[in-house]
């Protein structure tokens, strides 16, 4: 039965996070952007809202609400509205926790999930991207080889969110003799393992509070049970889908922020004797921004709902991500254009939003819905 009705719990969590995003994230966005750092007190405050532990089953000490990519997408959109960079930083551990809930073995869940149910904030992350321009998950070159005691992983991972602070991470590597994505698996890799070197990246155009890191893995020896899932490990398609939905949800939040910020400005800014909002060239840009914010949101919802029912582990998320990527960056860019020179200087958030939108729509592992 087709319905767009959120549950009461979903509406409540959206309201709560919208308030948090506006009051706590938005005012700190600029400083976090310029200093390449998410303030610990903001991340601690976000942690205390229980976002990460919400869907961890009670058996492992979590909130025990049903795992829902849709609820996560709603939360990410609400937080992304305040600041996509800080929102992604606040959700960074979702990159580790949600794949573990979805794909982890019982033993893996017991070992790791309780870490994320306490009051103390824990950072864990996911290493997906690599150095090659032509990289995509099916072309992963980081290799995991079996040996007598387990696995040996070698490769270089790039743009790993908050890699420097993480005390655990998932590393995506080619593990099986199967072509393309079928041979790719995720591994639980403690960053303090021998052979792992984490260094800061040179910097990035956007989402700078994520503190992107470079992770070198040199013959890193891991136990057999470090492969995510049972036996030969879990198909990572569901993981990729939840990453696509997560990134897209953040981008919807950012796009809405841009649109809502541009509307009052266009009504105030006078040119040629009237507010620029009364000129169709500007009014139609705003109308298109509104139209696409709607369309993008429903695409994310549909993909998330399909993920939750298990009816689709690839296509809906790919379509949603493709759609959002094309529209979100356009909205951020048009938002800047409406402000003209004021959009280009760093007093206002427009230029930051364009940089963040560019990062959100190209980096594929920022948040797991």
């Amino acid at each position: 039965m087709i319905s767009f009705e959120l549950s009461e719990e979903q509406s409540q969590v959206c309201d709560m996070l919208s308030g948090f995003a506006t009051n706590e994230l938005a005012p700190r966005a600029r400083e976090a952007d310029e200093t390449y750092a998410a303030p610990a007190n903001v991340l601690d405050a976000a942690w205390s809202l229980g976002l990460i532990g919400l869907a961890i089953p009670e058996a492992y000490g979590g909130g025990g609400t049903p795992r829902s990519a849709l609820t996560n997408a709603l939360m990410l959109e609400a937080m992304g509205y305040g600041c996509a960079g800080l929102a992604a930083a606040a959700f960074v551990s979702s990159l580790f926790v949600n794949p573990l809930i979805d794909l982890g073995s019982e033993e893996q869940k017991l070992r790791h999930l309780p870490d994320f149910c306490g009051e103390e904030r824990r950072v864990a992350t996911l290493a997906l991207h690599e150095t090659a321009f032509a990289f995509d998950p099916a072309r992963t070159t980081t290799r995991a080889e079996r040996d007598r005691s387990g696995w040996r992983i070698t490769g270089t991972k790039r743009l790993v969110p908050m890699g420097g602070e993480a005390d655990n991470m998932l590393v995506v590597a080619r593990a099986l003799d199967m072509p393309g994505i079928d041979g790719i698996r995720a591994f639980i890799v403690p960053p303090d393992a021998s052979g792992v070197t984490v260094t800061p990246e040179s910097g990035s155009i956007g989402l700078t509070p994520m503190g992107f890191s470079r992770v070198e893995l040199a013959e890193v020896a891991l136990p057999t049970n470090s492969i995510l899932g049972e036996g030969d490990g879990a198909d990572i398609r569901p993981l990729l889908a939840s990453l696509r939905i997560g990134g897209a949800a953040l981008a919807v939040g950012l796009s809405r922020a841009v649109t809502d910020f541009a509307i009052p400005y266009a009504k105030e800014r006078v040119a040629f004797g009237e507010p620029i909002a009364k000129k169709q060239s500007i009014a139609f840009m705003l109308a298109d921004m509104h139209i696409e914010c709607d369309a993008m949101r429903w695409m994310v919802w549909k993909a998330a709902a399909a993920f939750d029912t298990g009816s689709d582990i690839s296509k809906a998320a790919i379509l949603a991500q493709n759609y959002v990527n094309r529209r979100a960056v356009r909205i951020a860019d048009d938002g800047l254009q409406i402000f003209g020179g004021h959009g280009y200087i760093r007093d206002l958030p427009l230029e930051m939003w364009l940089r963040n939108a560019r990062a959100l729509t190209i980096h594929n592992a920022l948040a797991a819905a």
Partner: protein
Amino acid sequence: MVDFTLSDNDKDILESVAAEAKAGEKYARYYDEHEDETLPKAFPEAKAFPSILERIRRQPGNDTAPFIMQMLIKLEREAHNGVPLRQAPAALGNAALNAAGTQDQKTRWGHLMLAMSITEPGAGSDTKAIQTSARLDGDEWVLNGDKIFVTNGVRCAGTIVWATVSKSAGRGGIKSFLVLKGTPGFELVRKEKKLGIRSSDTAAYAFRDCRVPRDHLIGGDESVPRHDGEGSASYKGVLKTFNTTRPTVAAGGIGKALGAFRYARDRLAEEGVVVCWDDGRCDRSSVEQTLVELEADIEAATLTVLRAAWLASRGQSNNLEASVAKAKGGEICRSGPQRAMEVLGAMSLSHDHPVEQYLRDGRITDIYEGTGQIQRLVIARAILGYSSAELT
């Protein structure tokens, strides 16, 4: 709960809609090439398909709301390059009569197929600029003016005509009148020749001292509001019908894009060009990438229609969302079939294949029921808090 799945009942209905639409495919080219002919009330094949109204029995709590289903039905029908096996007994004028007519008027004329005459040679989107006039003379209204682009204007039994009773009153002076075929002074001037939707007749009318009884004023309110901002009851009544007609029209345009997309996807698959969902951006050809983007765009437009319909089905206001849906439907009806033709290459030009007709038939969606630009005006006014006078 957010849900995009269809119940078994929903699926059954859509499957039978698809089967019916498929049966109408064999007539598509004939009526495209014989524009002067009007579709029969029913084709022989119609017997195999009972009216959709009889089939659409809903189980609350499980099945999708009827109005949302209407959108999906429209979409599935238009995704086939066919003609309707039976002609709808009602047209746009009926929607206006239902929205703004008195009970007595609905009883008298509701059973007739009524067209809607708004557009004039000199006034399209700017409806308040219409010149057709109505003057009260004794107990009769005297209508004078020209109307064009009247959908179903040939086959209808009568039409609702927008005319002004006071040009100085602007929108407030615009009233709607019912004029039946055969009324002296009401002339069917011609049937238009069009890029597409040729099986749907489009008429031009002339009204020359055309007299109708006083009670043919829809809604019966003869007063003229003093302030231009308001608009008459019948004017507003018609605008209200847009909240349901715009998503429906959008669904039709999306259907054309969907039909073109399905054709392109399936024919290319036969020749070995298939989107692999595991492939990354470097492993996908530009044709495959276009198919991915086209499918995403169709999906997005569809969801805006479903959203507008969902609001309507709950009795919630959807003025803004109806325009969002119409803007998206109008966009994809153009870019969808265009891209389907691009990926199919030169043979898509040929009448051997339906894609070129999807383009021609779909293209109207961004024009009628408010152009894409009018939708953007409606949306911009809503989000900026401007009146129609403040943003033109």
